[in-house]
């Protein structure tokens, strides 16, 4: 068969950075995979795609969707063609995220202690206190090593000239890291030899680094502290990730009902009675963590856990109340934070952002709403956002009404045309838009970022929304060594 046909219909979108093509030429990091894909018969490629699906299914890398009482196993869609990040690109990402995370940790400590940044007029006080994720109970609580964000999943996108921008700081319970690890395992199976040949840096060390950091946080000076991973349970969409991480770190996976608090210490119920818990890597949101303080109807949390944390008898990862730092209205101030706390220029840019609370910015946004993406300041998962370029007039009118009710809750950003990369869809290679979420780990010995991450891709043609709840998939992410 004609081997060039697979790339024949690769329509480059105007004004968009393509990861593989620079005009008509294939960028050099993609050369090897390009040639490999050209040489391989279509049937082989389809077989590989099938194999990938089967591997995900049989290993249980799935989430369950419940409809009419029956559970249906779903796979998070996976595109077999890897996304490549060069060594130079990675260096700038790594430095930029490290700098940003340093500043964000300092900001959280400041907000929950002396509040210099408010007193110096950099961030307005009402913005902090009106944030629903600001937790008053955390005021003046000393957290171990002053680290609030131990795990960050900061989202990056690329504009038309290839510049990386920070889209979001996810500092609460970012998910997706298991796909960084498992996607790589799948690629090893479907494309033998391709990874060593391309000098791809490994990602397997992630659980070890995380475990090392968790152990180091133990408030009890013991050689072998009890570290647990707290999951909302098997009905959670990220349950697979929780079991994977627990297994890879060799720590106990617990649910809220397995834990009790006695005399401000946390214990787990074991077959040999109660055993004290030292460090909790929780994947339960703040709101559900402690029914005594937050949502009183929560059955996912543990009564009294916040008091144990405040007394310093247990370490909780990530810390409580981090949402005040990844709020989309606070996001606007992160470059200022970097200058304020570190006296450095930000290495990675923010996407220009308008806060609808400010009258003049609001007018500018509403007048140009077709060119804007409007989001809720505390939203996530791609829910409740408005893509001005594709929304109908009715949708826009309804959304405007919502905005006027409570402008504090909304920000707007110009539509940025995410970069595109080749995806194998229906027997053809086609460009699709994507972003990148590297996972940064912050421990007492500093910040480490495993070279890789979760590349999310909008599988719908022309779509700019990569969230899995909106038809997004993922790719293996290769960071090349120099």
């Amino acid at each position: 068969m004609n081997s060039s046909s697979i790339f024949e219909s690769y329509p480059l979108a105007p004004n968009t950075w393509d990861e593989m093509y620079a005009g008509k030429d294939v960028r050099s990091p993609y050369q090897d995979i390009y040639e490999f894909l050209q040489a391989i018969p279509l049937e082989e490629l389809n077989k590989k795609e099938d194999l990938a699906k089967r591997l995900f299914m049989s290993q249980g890398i799935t989430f369950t969707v419940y409809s009419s009482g029956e559970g249906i196993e779903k796979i998070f869609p996976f595109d077999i063609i890897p996304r490549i990040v060069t060594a130079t690109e990675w260096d700038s990402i790594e430095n930029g995220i490290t700098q940003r995370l340093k500043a964000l940790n300092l900001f959280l400590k400041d907000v929950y202690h002396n509040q210099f940044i408010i007193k110096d007029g950099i961030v307005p006080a009402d913005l902090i206190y009106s944030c629903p994720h600001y937790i008053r109970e955390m005021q003046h609580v000393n957290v171990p090593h002053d680290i609030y964000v131990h795990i960050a999943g900061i989202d990056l996108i690329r504009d038309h000239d290839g510049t990386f921008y920070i889209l979001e700081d996810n500092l609460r319970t970012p998910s997706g890291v298991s796909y960084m690890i498992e996607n790589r395992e799948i690629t090893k199976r479907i494309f033998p030899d391709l990874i060593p040949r391309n000098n791809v840096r490994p990602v397997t060390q992630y659980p070890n680094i995380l475990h090392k950091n968790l152990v180091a946080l133990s408030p009890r000076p013991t050689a072998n502290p009890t570290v647990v991973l707290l999951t909302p349970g098997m009905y959670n969409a990220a349950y697979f990730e929780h079991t994977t991480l627990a297994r890879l770190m060799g720590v106990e996976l617990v649910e809220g009902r397995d834990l009790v608090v006695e005399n401000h210490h946390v214990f787990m119920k074991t077959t040999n009675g109660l055993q004290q818990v030292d460090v909790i890597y929780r994947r339960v949101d703040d709101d559900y963590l402690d029914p005594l303080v937050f949502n009183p109807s929560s059955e996912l949390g543990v009564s009294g856990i916040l008091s144990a944390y405040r007394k310093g008898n247990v370490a909780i990862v990530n810390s409580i109340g981090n949402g005040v730092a990844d709020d989309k209205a606070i996001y606007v101030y992160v470059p200022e934070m970097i200058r304020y706390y570190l006296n450095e220029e930000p290495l990675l840019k923010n996407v220009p952002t308008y806060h609808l609370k400010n009258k003049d910015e609001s007018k500018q946004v509403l007048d140009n709403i077709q060119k804007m993406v409007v989001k809720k300041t505390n939203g996530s998962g791609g829910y409740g956002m408005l893509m001005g370029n594709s929304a109908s007039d009715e949708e826009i009118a309804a959304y405007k009404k919502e905005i006027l009710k409570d402008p504090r809750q909304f920000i707007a950003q110009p539509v940025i045309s995410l970069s595109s990369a080749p995806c194998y869809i229906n027997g053809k290679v086609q460009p699709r838009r994507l972003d990148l979420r590297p996972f940064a780990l912050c421990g007492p010995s500093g910040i480490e970022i495993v070279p890789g991450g979760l590349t999310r891709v909008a599988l719908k043609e022309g779509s700019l929304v990569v969230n899995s709840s909106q038809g997004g998939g993922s790719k293996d992410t290769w960071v090349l060594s120099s």
Partner: protein
Amino acid sequence: MLSRVADSLFWMSRYIERTEGILRMLKINYASSQDNTSEFGWNPVLKTFSFLEESQIAKIEKDSRAVLRFMVIDKDNPNSVVNMVTKSRENARAVQDHITKEVWQCLNEFYHIVCEDKLSKSLKSEDPVSVLDSLIRQGMLYYGTTEITMSRGEGMCFMSIGRYLERAIQSTDILQVKFKELPADDAESVTDPSSWKYFLMSISGYELYLKNYRSGFEVKNILDQIIFNINFPRSVHYSVYQAQRYFERLKNERNRDSYDKVNFMIGKLRSNIKFSNVESIVQEGLPNFLDKIHQELFSVGDALNQHYFANS
């Protein structure tokens, strides 16, 4: 180990053991149904392994395919293979960090096989023995994988206790149904040798029986094998003995109280079996004896629930 985890491992294992018992039972009874159509009926199997009323049983007991469908893929039957495997896998899913990846994948694949439409089609049109065999093989795969990959810790103990407790309960159930109509004190009552042959085959005990007892089928020998023979892996005595062995490994200073309570119950149960024989149980009355054993097996389960699984 977390109490919840111990609970899940115990049940993961029990459900697979039950699945395995049901599948073997179905396979041999199906074979029997092809051999002797006039006398054969599914009544005992349905009585042992389902919650159907007598009238509902009467509706399908002569229709092998209908029974197979009901026992294998009917989601409304809580004891169907598909429901058992689903529950086992749900338990496994909740304790993935305590079983090996191999065991998890094995159960996960088993689950996907029983959920596929293909199974229902093959049950309708293909040779049922081949279909049941392929499912039995999945169960064997689980046992082998567990044996080879699982660490010999607390988790394995709870899995084994679950497995043997379930097996002892099944063997008792099977005897209760089989001997309900039969006067056990009448040693000559065995009239239809082929039905006894299939009965022993359905619990994988036919070959052992032939080797041990040379005088053909006799009720007292059949009871002796299924209740007392310590070399027969499905006998009540063997199963209770194994459950006791694995339970004894859980002894440690931190849970002395709980251990003593449950240990007493298992020990008493085992003694009841060990110091009985066919003569004594015939004298006592077989139904009485089986009822007593049955109850004691269930109270061991309850005691574990209370003292080890924190479900009190």
